[in-house]
């Protein structure tokens, strides 16, 4: 819901992210804007190469933003910023990576992996305090404190992802970018990690940016979702609304492609392919508009009219 009283934690304003220079220039993210409210889980979905990870990395300040700005608590975090603020957001914005096999330093013990952020940010006064923090973080993610003296290869995939989560929790963040945190895990382990993420969110009032390509998981865990296609957000809204009534043809194709665990439904499904040439954007270029409260879509004037009619029709049916 676009409740104006809700506190905006992250504001992404018209950002472009360009890789390369001169003739080889490539615009990975093109004029993207969205807000993330405090305490919510915001989903970002799209195919590989759509720019979803790039946006996540831009918020983490790993990829520089070419145009536009990103605000955290109303203050700019991209570009040149004061040192103290830089240190503060390094602590408050954390990331959980996709592959827990590759994102943990295999030569370091869990103890060091978890405390690395603490050390580089000098967030402890004594060795006892550091060890206590590591121990607490491990307990919070459902691991034993003894595990601190082991190496990553001694753990299963699910446990490793828990270590990855502990590493970001130890910094006491407010906002976590979770980039495909469970796609490398098995079905039953996925459920455990998803539950862990939701519980932590409740306990610590965390805000998540959840980047994923598995829509069934996005539907389960997120409050609002943005669908991104070739660097542009094509549709954004409350997750349930978006899944029940997608407007943009790309969103529709994406939703239809998600296999459901129901053989009867699956056999009847026909393949929908999104054809980006179906839009007539030469004379009537598209804009990102709020088509109904809290529901944004990328459309030109003509399409907006059709979508409005669709929404009205749906409204009259209810």
């Amino acid at each position: 819901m676009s409740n104006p009283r809700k506190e905006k934690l992250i504001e992404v304003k018209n950002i472009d992210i360009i890789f390369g220079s001169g003739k080889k220039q490539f615009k990975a993210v093109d004029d993207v804007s969205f807000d993330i409210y405090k305490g919510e889980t915001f989903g970002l979905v799209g195919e590989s190469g759509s720019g979803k990870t790039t946006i996540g990395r831009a918020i983490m300040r790993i990829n520089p933003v070419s145009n536009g700005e990103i605000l955290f608590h109303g203050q700019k975090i991209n570009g040149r910023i004061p040192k103290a603020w830089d240190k503060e957001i390094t602590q408050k914005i954390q990331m959980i990576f996709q592959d827990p096999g590759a994102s943990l330093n295999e030569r370091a013990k869990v103890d060091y992996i978890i405390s690395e952020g603490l050390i580089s940010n000098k967030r402890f006064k004594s060795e006892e305090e550091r060890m206590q923090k590591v121990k607490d973080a491990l307990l919070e993610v459902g691991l034993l404190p003894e595990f601190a003296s082991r190496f990553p290869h001694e753990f299963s995939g699910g446990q490793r992802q828990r270590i990855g989560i502990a590493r970001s929790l130890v910094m006491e963040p407010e906002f976590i970018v979770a980039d495909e945190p469970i796609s490398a895990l098995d079905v039953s382990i996925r459920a455990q990690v998803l539950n862990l993420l939701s519980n932590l969110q409740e306990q610590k009032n965390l805000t998540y940016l959840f980047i994923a390509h598995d829509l069934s998981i996005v539907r389960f865990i997120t409050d609002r979702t943005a669908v991104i296609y070739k660097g542009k957000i094509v549709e954004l809204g409350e997750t349930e609304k978006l899944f029940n009534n997608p407007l943009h043809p790309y969103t529709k194709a994406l939703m239809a492609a998600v296999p459901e665990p129901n053989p009867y439904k699956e056999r009847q499904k026909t393949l929908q392919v999104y054809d980006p040439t179906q839009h007539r954007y030469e004379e009537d270029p598209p804009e990102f508009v709020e088509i109904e409260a809290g529901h944004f879509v990328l459309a030109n004037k003509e399409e907006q009219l059709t979508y409005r009619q669709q929404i009205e029709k749906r409204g009259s049916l209810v």
Partner: protein
Amino acid sequence: MESTLSIQNLVIKFKLRGQTLTAIRDISLDLYKGESLAIVGESGSGKSVLVKSIMGLLDKNGYIDSGKILYNGHDLAKFKTEKDWLKIRGKQIAMVTQDPMTSLNPLKTVGKQIEESVVLHQNLKGKEAYEKTLQLLRDVGIHEVERRYKQYPHEFSGGMRQRIVIAIAVACNPDVLICDEPTTALDVTIQAQILQLLTNLQQKYGLSTIYITHDLGVVAKVADRIAVMYAGDIIEVGKTDEVFFNAKHPYTWALISSLPQLGEKGEELYSIKGTPPNLFKEIKGDAFAPRNQYALKIDFVERPPFFKVSDTHFARTWLLDLKAPKVEPPKVLQAFFEEGRRYANE
């Protein structure tokens, strides 16, 4: 029904640092002609080991301890030399692997890679082989085939690369096609296209296919039958709708219940407690028993036999024994089963 491939009482073991690990524990499974069979299980359940043994691709420390793999009058379990395998592998049983990035040679054009397999297995040469390759490229849905023939794998997207891998697999007109997680590395929209392609090719070439996957959505789309594996054993097998909507083994229940589609937003998603058993140790009874809230005493002592649910549906759980107490599947599942029955009646 006529079976193409028949696995009988197969036991596969691995030697590792002086210890012996039993990866496959006395499995029997038939692949019927023209069907698509999905083998579902978590990592470590032995599903990949099972199909690797069919292709003769077990790691060096792995061996078939006992049992048979019957195919076309041969017992593949007896094959020793690479020469034996070359008659079967690729020619009659072909495989599509998970990651199209690593299964193609980056230094050869895709055309040459497909042609290699055409020349080797179909005894075609020169122009004929070239024409056949172009035909295969068209079959797997690639446009501008003459231009694409000359390109290297890095010039293709992930989905297109997987199409090339599929073209190589069907180039030899195999009987059996094994797809090991064919779409795990792909996006949902591309996944849907590749699955559609595989289904079409299966009908066109009359293939019998084995899918290995952990994604129950994919299974629902492509499979005629499902075999569920846990800790090296098949614990339930049946037609797709039977296993989905009339599952009998508690592990199958747990697997379906942990799907996010069945979860209630804002509430805990069902998750299986504990971890899979250590395969180095001898497993007594039902391997799932320690994690199973419905486990009976006998589950810890004796391995359950296959109880018959219907002519096509079998499950290895003592809960189906006449003397067992009546146990209802978890609540979430009952609603799911109900929905399935509604669809079945329509």
